[in-house]
């Protein structure tokens, strides 16, 4: 079996990071919208 | 229906008259195309790539960008002193405005092609004579596609804050299915293959033209209504 786990790990780390960062970016934008009231 | 085209013809003539009197955009696009031909020559290792292999790419990259240069002016010129408002107030169909603008742009792009294709033939020493009719057919079909897409997006882009920066971003993805068949058909013709080999590409171009002439004409009123 070829050892290419570097690609495997990189792909999953990047994909999960993008999902998480995007979800957080929506939250941040929503929070900025109405600082006084809960969204 | 006849009125639609009569009004479109009036608009096209108005645009062409402006262009003919100032000649600013046409000259700029033409010089841009000629400069492109020169730059491409020096960006290319002539011992490694035959000119016949390079020419289709050169031609189509140049037409795409020279077209963009001219298309932006199409509605940009109406923004000055809000000339577009007078155009919209005129008792004509919105479709006429689009068809007229597109016709003027087609003359514009075709004008660049009429000069640029022989220029490429001369500078790159291509056997143009025999294939010229077929080549101009390809160029015309491609120009129609470039122009309908470009005219619609020019109308949209001229109303945005980004204006001329936005037009290439909107239009270039749509130019890809034009440039691929056009460059491929040009390559077949220039390398002396029978015209039948270029036919599938011509059909694809024609199909693109039909679909997007209809779609863009129908979509245009949405881009200007108040």
């Amino acid at each position: 079996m070829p050892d290419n786990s570097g690609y495997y790990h990189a792909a999953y780390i990047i994909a999960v990071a993008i999902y998480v960062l995007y979800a957080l970016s929506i939250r941040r934008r929503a929070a900025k919208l109405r600082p006084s009231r809960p969204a | 229906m006849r009125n639609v085209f009569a009004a479109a013809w009036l608009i096209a003539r108005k645009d062409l008259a402006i262009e003919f009197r100032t000649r600013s955009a046409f000259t700029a696009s033409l010089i841009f195309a000629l400069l492109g031909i020169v730059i491409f020559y020096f960006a290319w290792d002539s011992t490694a790539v035959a000119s016949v292999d390079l020419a289709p790419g050169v031609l189509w990259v140049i037409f795409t960008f020279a077209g963009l240069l001219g298309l932006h002016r199409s509605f940009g010129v109406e923004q000055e002193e809000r000339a577009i408002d007078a155009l919209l107030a005129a008792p004509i169909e919105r479709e006429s405005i689009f068809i007229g603008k597109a016709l003027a742009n087609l003359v514009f792009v075709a004008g660049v092609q009429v000069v640029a294709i022989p220029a490429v033939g001369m500078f790159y020493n291509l056997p143009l004579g025999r294939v010229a009719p077929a080549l101009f057919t390809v160029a015309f079909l491609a120009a129609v596609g470039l122009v309908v897409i470009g005219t619609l997006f020019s109308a949209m882009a001229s109303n945005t804050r980004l204006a001329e920066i936005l037009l290439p971003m909107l239009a270039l993805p749509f130019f890809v299915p034009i440039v691929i068949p056009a460059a491929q058909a040009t390559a077949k013709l220039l390398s002396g293959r029978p015209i039948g080999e270029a036919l599938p590409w011509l059909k694809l171009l024609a199909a693109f033209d039909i679909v997007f002439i209809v779609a863009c004409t129908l979509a245009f009123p949405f881009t200007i209504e108040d």
Partner: protein
Amino acid sequence: MKVSRLSIVAILAGLAALVRVVFFTPFEAIQGPAQKIFYVHVSAAWCAFLAFGLVGLLSALYLWMRDEKLDRLAESAAEVGTVFTTIVLITGPLWAKPVWGTYWTWDARLTLTLFLWFIFVAYIILRGAVDDRALRSRYSAVLGILGALLVPFIHLSVYMFRTLHPKPIVAKPERPSLPNEMLVTLAVCVVAALIILGALLRARYNYANLRDAEIDSGGAHA
């Protein structure tokens, strides 16, 4: 801030899919660990195509019914779709390099995905460049519809480009029929990605609604 129930389900589904891929799916003998990229890649790709279809559909519906909600949903689908397409375009080459021997080939599907990304990005930039809300909705709807019309042409022209051209030297193995275990993992990942798509879409749509409501009530954001 509260986290919605759908978001919690999406987080759990994502974690479950990740655990399934990492710990409960065997390595493929020939392709090695990199083959596992397939799961995150394919599931994101399906969601990306789905989002693109949604943008086209919602655009047409907007021009027909002129309901601002449709436009905000299209706006959300485009942004979420861009995220999925970005993941597809990053994980794809990372899988292709060890398996095919090259990061990229210009085959019809890869090229199409790249152009979906370009159109999505142009759509988002266009929205950002128009201040008038009604105008912005119409412009983006027009782009959404034309983008949907463009897809078959890109696919056909790239497909013809490839078939009428000499094939590249890069070996492209036929897709092997997946053993059951891997098929289940793929199904888990697709379901998880669809739930994540739904959760992101809803969160983004809620945000768009709040934002426009605030503008309507004369808030600070213009």
